[in-house]
């Protein structure tokens, strides 16, 4: 077991899968120089044919990746979440729809690694947290790892998956450190975290927090502080949103009777909205109090730190929400 950075976990996952399978390659803007970090040293090890710098043409090279995946390759595309709008047509009309519309004739084993920078003064054009959009579309798996271990294990799973995967890398977590087992320490010799299986990071009996991506550390901190105040909080991390492990969420709410959903995405039609709608419909009789949504404010991301810090869910917001449900 080693303590490594989230960013290193991503790097390890890519390198291991590229070693394992010649069909896997990485493409994106400035990936050879690894401007963003997760591709560090990959071009040295794998050469320019498997670590490909692309022109600034998101729609074009997203499509090229999709096409390559349709005929036997396994591309990993690196991009920022905010640039996905530019390549949106390829994501929706091709990656998401091709398989169904062609009656299942084709698999598309392509992974889009979508970095979400936010919280660091990047302003409205560089701070999107748009995974809820892709949940609505269908046909795209959506991963939202919150720990280095899950980052590595889910990314390896994503690369081996036969369906297109959007893999959201939360910028606020990239510098966090956590235990990641060596492959030799795990059964099968490979750290593979399955899709569709939530992680219960903390057991509790009074209230459930469902915390998505970068919300997890805040949820854990809130839970720890509330424990001191005698409130027992269970923290559930869905890890993937498509597929969504609603069973674990519903079981937790059945136990606690209360639920706060924390989502760094914009509030309206968020992942939190979806989760709450499921609990409201399928877990209604478990609920002893209204659920509360703690999500980002429904404005664009302002540049100035004094405003930006008010945007996203904080530990205090979560604590306040839990206290309110406990009233």
């Amino acid at each position, binding site marked *: 077991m080693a303590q490594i950075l989230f960013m290193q976990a991503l790097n390890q996952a890519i390198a291991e899968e590229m070693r394992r399978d010649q069909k896997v390659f990485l493409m994106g803007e400035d990936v050879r120089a690894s401007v963003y970090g997760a591709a560090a040293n990959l071009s040295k090890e794998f050469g320019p044919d498997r670590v490909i710098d692309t022109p600034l043409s998101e729609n074009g090279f997203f*499509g090229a990746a999709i096409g390559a995946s*349709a*005929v036997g390759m396994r591309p990993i595309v690196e991009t920022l979440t905010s640039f996905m709008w530019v390549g949106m047509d390829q994501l929706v009309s091709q990656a998401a729809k091709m398989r169904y519309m062609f009656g299942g004739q084709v698999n*598309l084993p392509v992974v889009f690694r979508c970095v979400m920078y936010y919280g660091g003064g990047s302003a409205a054009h560089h701070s999107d947290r748009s995974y809820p959009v892709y949940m609505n579309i269908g046909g795209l798996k959506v991963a939202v790892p919150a720990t280095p271990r899950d980052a590595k294990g889910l990314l390896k799973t994503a690369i081996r998956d036969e369906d297109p995967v959007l893999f959201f890398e939360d910028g606020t977590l990239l510098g966090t450190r956590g235990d990641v087992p060596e492959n030799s320490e795990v059964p099968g010799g490979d750290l593979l975290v399955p899709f569709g299986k939530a992680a219960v990071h903390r057991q509790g009996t009074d209230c459930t927090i469902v915390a998505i991506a970068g919300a997890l550390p805040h949820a854990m901190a809130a839970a720890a502080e509330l424990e001191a105040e005698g409130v027992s909080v269970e923290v559930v991390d869905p890890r993937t949103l498509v597929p969504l492990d609603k069973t674990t969420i519903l079981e937790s709410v059945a136990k606690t009777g209360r639920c706060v959903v924390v989502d760094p995405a914009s509030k309206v039609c968020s992942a939190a909205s979806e989760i709450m709608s499921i609990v409201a419909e399928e877990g209604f009789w478990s609920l002893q109090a209204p659920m509360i949504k703690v999500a980002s404010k429904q404005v664009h991301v302002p540049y100035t730190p004094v405003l930006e810090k008010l945007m996203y869910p904080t530990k205090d917001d979560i604590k306040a929400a839990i206290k309110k449900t406990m009233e």
Partner: protein
Amino acid sequence: MAIEKQKLMLMLRRMWLIRHFEETVIKVYTSGEFGGAAHPYIGEEAVAVGACVALRDSDYIAGNHRSHGHPIAKGGDVKKAMAEIYGRRDGYCKGKGGSMHLADFSIGILGESGIVASSVPVATGAALAAKLQKKDFVSAVFFGDGASNQGACHEAMNLGSVWKLPVIFICENNQYAVTTPYKSTVSSEHIADRAQAYNMPGVLVDGQDAIAMYEATTEAVKRARAGRGPTLIEALTYRFEEHSLGLGRIRRSEYRTAEEVTDWRKRDPIVIHEKKLLETKTATQAEIDAIKAETGKEVDAALEFARQSPFPEAAELYEDMWADKAMPIP
């Protein structure tokens, strides 16, 4: 370029297959047997056929909403194509795709795409795979004059060129995007001129002439297989029918004159090809008639097949979304 008789006859066969197919679709559409949109390829047969006969089975093609001609030209099965348009389980996509989304991955047909220009990057990606896999297949993509204005075309052509990919961009300039003449939407004189902007050959071809298309494509294929990158072929052609079945409103709008249509109809690609076959004594009238008759029967059989094929079962609604069978449908 001397072309073997077998290929020349194959061109005729596939053009007739498309012609019969489209005429049948028009006939049955009007009788209300199915709905949705269907964009006839009549008049443009030489473009796809000339190009596809220059390809191997292991090569890839992708196309657009005007979507029956390309797969048939590549050797697609008219039975499965017709059944798909009929929304039946034996259709190419089990009824899920319909007219605009025919595909046959078993013979390199990566699929027709309803979003204009959207398949151009995808086809470019197949060519990228050829390069990465060090295989010598090529990828050809058909798109319209209207599509050429989409950013997707620009990006894909640039990618194809800087990466020297074995991709062939085939623009079917049939003069209009729905009702809008390309002269009012394409700023260059010819679309082929744009090739210069991507440092690739740009070839203007008579799209009514299957042999000309075959020759231009053969050049492009050579270039592509040799690792010298893409070619842009602009085929000047015309759709003899309206943009799409079921859009009566278009017919009422006067975006093209009756004379123009008549003039172009005089340049029927099948007539042109048959004339050449006869003039060069490559084929006899009897051989030609036989092909016409055989393909007619093939399409009749396809229609029968389609009509007999069952509709999908309700449970199939939830199939084919995911390769991963464990995926829940919420």
